[in-house]
């Protein structure tokens, strides 16, 4: 009797154990299924990542090739710009030389006598040929400046010496106009790191401009040594510029005031070129004027230091 009961209890126990084990196994099976799902998800994500990486690599390779291609195109366009400027220069200058020389020769009597009236009209031609010459030169310079192709050859130079060169070329004209010429130069050397020809040109443009609008009095050129800059100015006792004209003074093709009175018609580009040259040298230029009292154009050039030389040695800029 006892054996049977004992065995029954044992059996119940054993069933409990088996049930527990079954539950365990089911849990494990679920965990396994979940893990399998997780693995599947991870595998899918990894596949997407792998696909992504491959696509990214491919895209980057293509985009770099594209960048290279665009760079080459830019270089070609750049060269075309320079070639255009050079070709136009040649094409415009050649006929101008021929025209000028032919007229000159007839005027000089080389090809037979000429009447005063003929000479008068030929002189008119010559004047405008010269004006065209200056215009072509100025336009080409402006094209070069705007295309970033205006090359500056910088060297250490005493600005006073450059001013003197410009003044010398205008001296006869100033004297013939009966005007005074004053110089106000600092006592020691005013050294700056500049392109000589360009700065002489700036002085020349400013002096030429002053002469155009001054009938009496004088023109004064000064070069002053300031703490960080060399400050240069060209003043005149001329007609002056009205307040409303001042903002456009450095604009292109600006001829302001009464230009019929000017003895030699300008190109309207001189001041614009002067401004561009000064800006290319990291300087400033401005004008102060009073109607009928006179005008002063002032520009600054940074003083020469070793650091400045290294800083500004950028080709074509």
């Amino acid at each position, binding site marked *: 009797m006892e054996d049977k009961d004992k065995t029954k209890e044992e059996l119940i126990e054993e069933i409990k154990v088996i049930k527990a084990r079954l539950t365990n196994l089911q849990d494990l099976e679920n965990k396994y299924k979940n893990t399998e799902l997780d693995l599947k998800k991870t595998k899918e994500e990894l596949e997407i990542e792998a*696909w*992504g990486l491959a*696509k990214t690599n491919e*895209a980057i390779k*293509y*985009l770099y090739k594209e960048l290279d291609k665009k760079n080459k195109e830019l270089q070609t366009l750049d060269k075309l710009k320079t070639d255009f400027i050079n070709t136009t220069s040649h094409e415009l200058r050649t006929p101008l030389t021929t025209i000028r020389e032919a007229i000159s020769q007839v005027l000089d009597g080389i090809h037979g006598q000429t009447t005063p009236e003929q000479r008068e009209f030929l002189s008119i031609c010559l004047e405008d040929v010269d004006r065209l010459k200056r215009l072509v030169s100025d336009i080409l310079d402006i094209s070069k400046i705007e295309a970033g192709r205006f090359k500056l050859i910088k060297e250490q130079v005493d600005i006073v010496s450059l001013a003197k060169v410009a003044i010398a070329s205008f001296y006869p004209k100033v004297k013939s106009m009966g005007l005074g010429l004053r110089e106000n130069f600092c006592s020691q050397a005013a050294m700056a790191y500049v392109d000589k020809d360009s700065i002489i040109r700036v002085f020349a443009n400013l002096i030429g401009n002053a002469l155009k609008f001054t009938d009496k009095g004088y023109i004064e050129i000064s070069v002053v040594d300031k703490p960080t800059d060399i400050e240069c100015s060209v003043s005149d006792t001329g007609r002056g510029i009205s307040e409303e004209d001042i903002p456009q003074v450095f604009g292109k093709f600006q001829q302001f005031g009464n230009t019929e009175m000017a003895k030699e018609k300008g190109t309207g580009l001189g001041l614009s070129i002067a401004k561009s040259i000064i800006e290319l040298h990291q300087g400033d230029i401005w004008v102060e004027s009073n109607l009928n009292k006179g005008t002063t154009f002032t520009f600054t050039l940074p003083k020469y230091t070793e650091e400045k030389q290294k800083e500004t040695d950028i080709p074509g800029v």
Partner: protein
Amino acid sequence: MGKKILLVDDNSVDLLIIKRHLSHAGYNEIVSASGADEGIKKAELERPDLIILDTLLPGSSGFEICQTIREKYNQTNPKIIIMTGSVDAVDAVKARKVGADDYCAKTSDCVPLLAAIKKLI
């Protein structure tokens, strides 16, 4: 080939270049949109076989449009390609996740784009 393609790109020059290359390759039914809303509207109206989306669009992105289209319509049609013109916007994984069928670089010769199109339609 008779397949209709919808192009969504806000750069008019790029659109012109791509249209030209596509028509040279024989795909003549091309419609275009320059913004996200226009793109989604045209996707519904025109029922194209393939939609090409630029990654960068004003106020939105190719990814957003792709996601919207996949949610609204169909998970498999139309086919969608997302293309990028800038290495900054490279995100191929994101493209796959929003349901695009392919992802490629936008180049001026359209070579990668045409290869991707060929595989899909």
